[in-house]
C-alpha cells in the first residue's frame, strides 16, 4: 500500500486563503478529513481487543456505504470523543435529509436532531424535530439556497462541497441566529432556527469557513502553538492567534456576502467587517505567530479584503460601522486589560510629583472566559439602520454622532466605554483602561486633567 502526502500548489493555496478555493482544493480538503476520520477510527478500534459492534458493521458494509459513514461529520466527532473518554458506541443518525436544488446546483444536508454526540458542537442541541419544524427548516434552506445559488454562486459551490450536517440548537436569548462549528466535525454546523433565509445563508457561509480553515490547518499548520491571547474584533474575550484567524476567515465570507446586498443593514455589516477583517489580518501578519504557510494564507486573505476598503459606502453608515468597531475595541480593553499595582503606584507618584506620566504596560486580566459581543450601543445602531430613532440618553447621542451631548453623562457616570468613544482626550480613546486605573487610584484628581495628562 503506497500513499502520498497531500500537496497543494501555491496558487491554489493562495486562492484558499482568499476564501475562493477551487473544486480540486476542496476535494483535497475532503480527502484530508476523510483520512483524519479513518485515523481516529483506527485508534478507537485499537482501544479494545474484542471487535466492537460498529467495527463489525463496517466490515459487513459495502465500500461505498462504509465510506459514507466514515466521512459523516458525526463519525469523526464521535471517534474523537471516544479517544478522550474511552470506548463508546456511535449514536443513531437523524432521519431528516434535505435536498434543495436551485440554478442547477444541489445541496443535500441532514438535520441531525438525534445523535447524542451532536451536543459536542458547542451549543445546546434542540430536541428531535417535529414534522412541521423539519418542514420549516426545509423551506428556509430552500430560500437561502435560492439566494446563494442565484446570487453568490462561487460561495454556494463551496458550501455544497463542504456542508453535510446541520444540528439544530436552542436559540440564545441575546443573539438571533446563533451558530457554532467544531474542528472535530468537518462539514457540520450547529444553528438555531434562523429568522430569515438571509440569516441562514450568512450563518452557513460563516460556519463553513471554520470547517475549511480547520481542514487547511490539519494539512498545513498555519499558526505556531501556545501563543498569547490578544484582541479579536469578534469576541469580548482574548483570543489566541488561531482564534483571530478563524474570525477573520469566517467574516471574510460574510463581508463578501454583504458586499452586494441591498439595504442599510447589509451596508453596515460590509463596512464594519471589511475593516475588522483587514485589521485582524494585518495584526496576524505582524504578530509573529504565523507559520510560513500561515503567512502565505493570511497575506492572500489580506489582499482579498484590502480592495474592498476603497469601495464607496454611505458616509453615515460608515460612521456607524467605525463607531461599532471602536466601541468593541474600547470595551475589549476595559474588560480584559488592567494596570498592575506597580504601574498604578508609578502613575500616582508621577501625578503627585507633577512629572510626565510614566510608560504603562497594561496586562491581561486572567479568567475572563468566553464572551460574545454585548454593547449597549449596538442595538441602537441597528435601530437606526432599520429606520428608527435611537432614542434619548448618552448612548443615543453617541449613535447620532453628537459627542458633545453624550460627554457630560458619560463623565458623570464614569462610563469608561462611552468616554472612550466621545472624549476629546486621545488617552481615553486609545487606552481607556489606563485612565480608568489612574482615576480610580486618584479619586480627587479631575478626570479631564488626568486624561489630558495621560494623553
Amino acid at each position, binding site marked *: 500500500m503506497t500513499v502520498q502526502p497531500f500537496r497543494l*500548489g501555491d496558487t491554489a*493555496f493562495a486562492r484558499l486563503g482568499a476564501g475562493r478555493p477551487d473544486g480540486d482544493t476542496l476535494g483535497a480538503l475532503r480527502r484530508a478529513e476523510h483520512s483524519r476520520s479513518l485515523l481516529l477510527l483506527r485508534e478507537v478500534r485499537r482501544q479494545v481487543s474484542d471487535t466492537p459492534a460498529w467495527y463489525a458493521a463496517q466490515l459487513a458494509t459495502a465500500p461505498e456505504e462504509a465510506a459514507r459513514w466514515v466521512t459523516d461529520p458525526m463519525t469523526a466527532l464521535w471517534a474523537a470523543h471516544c479517544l478522550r473518554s474511552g470506548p463508546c458506541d456511535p449514536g443513531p443518525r437523524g432521519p431528516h435529509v434535505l435536498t434543495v436544488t436551485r440554478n442547477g446546483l444541489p445541496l443535500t444536508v441532514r438535520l441531525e436532531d438525534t445523535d447524542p454526540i451532536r451536543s459536542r458542537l458547542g451549543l445546546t442541541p434542540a430536541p428531535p424535530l417535529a414534522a412541521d419544524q423539519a418542514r420549516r427548516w426545509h423551506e428556509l434552506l430552500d430560500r437561502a439556497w435560492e439566494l446563494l445559488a442565484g446570487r453568490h454562486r462561487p460561495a454556494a459551490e463551496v458550501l455544497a462541497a463542504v456542508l453535510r450536517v446541520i444540528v439544530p440548537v436552542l436559540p440564545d436569548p441575546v443573539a438571533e*441566529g446563533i*451558530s*457554532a462549528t467544531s474542528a472535530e466535525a468537518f462539514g457540520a454546523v450547529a444553528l438555531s432556527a434562523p429568522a430569515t433565509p438571509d440569516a441562514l445563508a450568512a450563518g452557513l457561509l*460563516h*460556519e463553513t469557513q471554520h470547517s475549511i480553515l480547520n481542514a487547511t490547518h490539519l494539512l498545513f499548520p498555519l499558526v505556531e502553538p501556545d501563543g498569547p491571547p490578544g484582541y479579536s474584533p469578534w469576541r469580548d474575550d482574548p483570543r489566541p492567534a488561531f482564534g483571530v484567524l*478563524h474570525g477573520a476567515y469566517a467574516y471574510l465570507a460574510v463581508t463578501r456576502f454583504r458586499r452586494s446586498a441591498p439595504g442599510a443593514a447589509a451596508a453596515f455589516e460590509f463596512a464594519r467587517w471589511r475593516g475588522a477583517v483587514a485589521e485582524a489580518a494585518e495584526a496576524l501578519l505582524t504578530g509573529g505567530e504565523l507559520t510560513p504557510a500561515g503567512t502565505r494564507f493570511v497575506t492572500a486573505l489580506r489582499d482579498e479584503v484590502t480592495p474592498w476598503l476603497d469601495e464607496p459606502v454611505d458616509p453615515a453608515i460608515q460612521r456607524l460601522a467605525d463607531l461599532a468597531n471602536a466601541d468593541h475595541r474600547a470595551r475589549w480593553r476595559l474588560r480584559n486589560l488592567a494596570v498592575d499595582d506597580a504601574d498604578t503606584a508609578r502613575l500616582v507618584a508621577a501625578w503627585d510629583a507633577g512629572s510626565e506620566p510614566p510608560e504603562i504596560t497594561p496586562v491581561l486580566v486572567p479568567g475572563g472566559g468566553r464572551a460574545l459581543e454585548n454593547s449597549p450601543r449596538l442595538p441602537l445602531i441597528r435601530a437606526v439602520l432599520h429606520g428608527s430613532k435611537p432614542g434619548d440618553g448618552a448612548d443615543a447621542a453617541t449613535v447620532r454622532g453628537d459627542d458633545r451631548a453624550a460627554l457630560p453623562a458619560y463623565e458623570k457616570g464614569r462610563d469608561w466605554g462611552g468616554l472612550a468613544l466621545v472624549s476629546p482626550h486621545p488617552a481615553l480613546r486609545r487606552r481607556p483602561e489606563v485612565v480608568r486605573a489612574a482615576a480610580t487610584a486618584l479619586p480627587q484628581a479631575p478626570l479631564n486633567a488626568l486624561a489630558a495628562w495621560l494623553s
Partner: protein
Amino acid sequence: MGTSGPEEVAVHADPDGDEPEEWRSVMIDLSAVPLPDLVEQDGSALVRAVRRVTGDAAPGEPIAGFNSAL
C-alpha cells in the same frame, strides 16, 4: 506503508526564483484505504499522521457565537 517525498511540512522553492510553487503536508492521503487495512498497519508515516490528528487530544473549543441577524 510506503510514502514518497519529505516527511515534514515544507515549501518547495521554485529553482528559478523565490516563489514557492507547492506546499507539502505531513498528512498522507488515506482516503482510498479501507479501514481494516489501516487497523492492521503500522509505519512511520502512519504514526506521524496519527499524531497529527490526535495531537490536539484536548477537545478543541467549538467556535460558537456568530449572530447572523441583520
